[in-house]
């Protein structure tokens, strides 16, 4: 259902489009500019690695030329909703790794939290730098047929995509300079600065001039372009696990002139692979002793360990209740209607309506472990039915939505395609949301 075709901004041809719709009519000119844009990407090396291709050729990230336009008023609403959500999620994580009030008061079942694959009991009772339990979120938003924005899910581990937003904007400025100017598009270019400020803010307080690094799984990772892009933009070192060592619970990087201290790690590696002495022992990507260094407060990780418990799709279901519980407010942005198969009432509804629902595995991202009822065969549906009955905690279901569409350049013509939106939310000294986001376009 979801494919990766990023665009710059949003919305179908509506009131937001007076002058933009004029140039949409000139299709030939549009296609010429699409070509220009693709050439620019190739030259700039905005690529992703294709895992199956041993020739080392890299593909450019497909790019849809037609911008998604979000009017300021609509953005203000999204911004307020996302800020509220980030605030509540931070309080939730602080709570479950601390006092556990939300479980004790029965708002969220205790076993719901503890059975989450990404819950890390190792992190219980550990002070978070500056009281921040989560720093970066990439929530995925969709819009229904009534024009209402919903949160599809949060991405609180290592969300990616922001580098493509920044590169797309560079290309848009080159290809449509007038449009960017006339629409007074808000700049996204301050993102690397804001991210660096956030990372510096997390450093142990006694360190006057902290060193920040980006930890990558390596050049073969599909998101390596983004890792090296962000490291370059922020002017920080990009390191692999083997570059880091822990001595006396402090983290150092191996340099030619000796071991240089590291105070903040923007890690793009999942919890499981971070530290073989605590998590997966077979991980070669991580750093032995890193978790202990973190516990002692000698190094800060961004995102911290254990945030994944809050982007478990079953946990997303409870976010409106978290907002009510911690903030005493109603959620500004509703969730997409979700059924929990671990809830008996919901379970019988799910099993009755499987052909009409989208079923997702709670721990997977990127469309893995997913059933789209209306597009599935009887056999596939029965397979999922068995899996759901065996492991109800592992699945959630959502109705298929009449998602909003946006015109897209499809080979030689324009077609309406379903879209989503992933803004990037930073939780540092204040909550900062880049005014824009990654829009992915369904290829069918």
């Amino acid at each position: 259902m979801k494919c990766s075709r990023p665009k710059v901004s949003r919305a179908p041809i509506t009131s937001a489009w007076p002058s933009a719709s004029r140039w949409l009519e000139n299709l030939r000119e549009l296609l010429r500019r699409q070509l220009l844009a693709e050439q620019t990407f190739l030259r700039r090396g905005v690529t992703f690695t294709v895992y199956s291709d041993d020739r080392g050729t890299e593909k450019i990230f497909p790019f849809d030329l037609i911008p998604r336009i979000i009017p300021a008023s609509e953005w203000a609403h999204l911004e307020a909703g996302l800020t509220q959500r980030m605030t509540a999620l931070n309080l939730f994580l602080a709570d479950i790794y601390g006092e556990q009030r939300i479980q004790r008061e029965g708002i969220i079942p205790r076993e719901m939290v503890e059975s989450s694959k990404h819950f890390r009991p190792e992190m219980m009772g550990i002070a978070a730098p500056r009281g921040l339990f989560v720093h970066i979120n990439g929530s995925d938003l969709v819009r229904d047929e009534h024009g209402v924005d919903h949160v599809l899910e949060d991405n609180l581990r290592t969300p990616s995509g922001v580098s493509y937003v920044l590169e797309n904007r560079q290309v848009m400025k080159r290809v449509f300079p007038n449009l960017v100017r006339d629409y007074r598009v808000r700049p996204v270019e301050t993102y690397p600065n804001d991210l660096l400020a956030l990372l510096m803010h997390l450093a142990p307080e006694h360190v006057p001039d902290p060193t920040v690094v980006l930890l990558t799984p390596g050049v073969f990772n599909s998101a390596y372009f983004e890792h090296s892009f962000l490291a370059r933009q922020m002017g920080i070192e990009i390191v692999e696990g083997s570059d880091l060592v822990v001595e006396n619970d402090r983290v150092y990087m191996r340099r030619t002139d000796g071991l240089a201290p590291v105070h903040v790690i923007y890690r793009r590696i999942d919890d499981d692979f971070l530290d073989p002495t605590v998590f997966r022992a077979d991980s070669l990507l991580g750093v032995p002793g890193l978790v202990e260094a973190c516990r002692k407060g000698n190094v800060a990780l961004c995102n911290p360990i254990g945030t994944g418990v809050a982007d478990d799709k079953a946990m997303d279901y409870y976010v409106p209740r978290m907002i009510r519980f911690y903030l005493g407010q109603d959620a500004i942005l509703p969730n997409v209607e979700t059924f929990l198969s671990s809830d008996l009432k919901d379970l019988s509804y799910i099993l009755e309506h499987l052909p009409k629902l989208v079923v997702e595995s709670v721990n997977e991202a990127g469309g893995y472990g997913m059933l789209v009822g209306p597009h599935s065969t009887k056999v596939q549906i029965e397979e999922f039915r068995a899996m759901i009955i065996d492991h109800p905690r592992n699945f959630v279901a959502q109705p298929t939505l009449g998602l909003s569409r946006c015109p897209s350049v499809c080979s030689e013509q324009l077609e309406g395609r379903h879209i989503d939106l992933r803004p990037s939310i930073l939780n540092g000294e204040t909550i900062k949301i880049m005014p824009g986001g990654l829009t992915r376009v369904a290829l069918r």
Partner: protein
Amino acid sequence: MLSRVANLIYWMARYLERAENTARIVDVNTQLVLDLQSRQAADDPRSWMPLVYVSGGDKQYQKLHGADITERAVVDFMLFDRDHHSSMVSCVSSARENARCIRDQLASEVWEQLNSLYLKLREDDYTRYAQLGASEYTMRVQTQIQLIYGIAESMLPRNEMWWFFELGWHLERADNTSRIIDVKYYTLLPSLEAVGSALDIVQWAAVLRTCSAFEAFRKSRRGQLNLEPVVDYLLRDESFPRSVLYSIRQGGMALDCITTEAPHLADNPAQTLITKLHEALDQTVVREKIVSGLHEYVDQVQLDVAAIHAAVQKTFINYSTDGAKLLN
């Protein structure tokens, strides 16, 4: 600079230089065999085996080809065999893999040129080599690699990255030039009397040409084209950039630049060893080495270079973290 990154750039330079010299070594042997003039000698498989010996790949060759020694099998092994890690193609491919890992830190032109060389070589094989002829083919590859050096030299900032590039580049060249001298040593002359004969002279000229040193040697007014002056030139010339002594001096300068950045590493073992080798080369009397065994002498030079390499690794790259300097 990160040790891993330093090691990648250091090895990238070594692999490139090795690829170039492997092409040169194949070329020199082709010339030597041609000059033997007698068909019988030229077809003698033993004329090709020296290549495998000097590149240090005899064990692997045996594993892959057994006792089967032909021109085709040896050239294939030296240039195109992907299972032979020191073949030209393997070296270019390793250099390219290293460059890929540090692409964002290299000048993009360096990466692009190396990548296109790699893509071009993937199509090549013995048939293509035979079509163009040894000289033409190896010359083309050498020119492509020279292009990468040229781009690197004019684009890379003179910081640690460059000094590690230079260090790997020159250590490998010192090693490789000594091996080229060795090829001639292994090439049998028809009889003992042939030493100093017309054939001998022609062969030494071919060795010089392979090192792009023929004209330079002539201009250096060292006199006759025979064993002693040619070996002395390739081993010890102060100004010829492919001589062993010159390469070691350049490598030493790169090492000094690296160390200047880290004063606590002054007088590290790598520097000590490189200074020692430079002095030894400076004081070498080639005539004596010829008497006591030239092959044994160049073998020792190669071992000395290997010891410098090991010391570089231990000082800058995979040093033990116990007792390593903790920086502020």
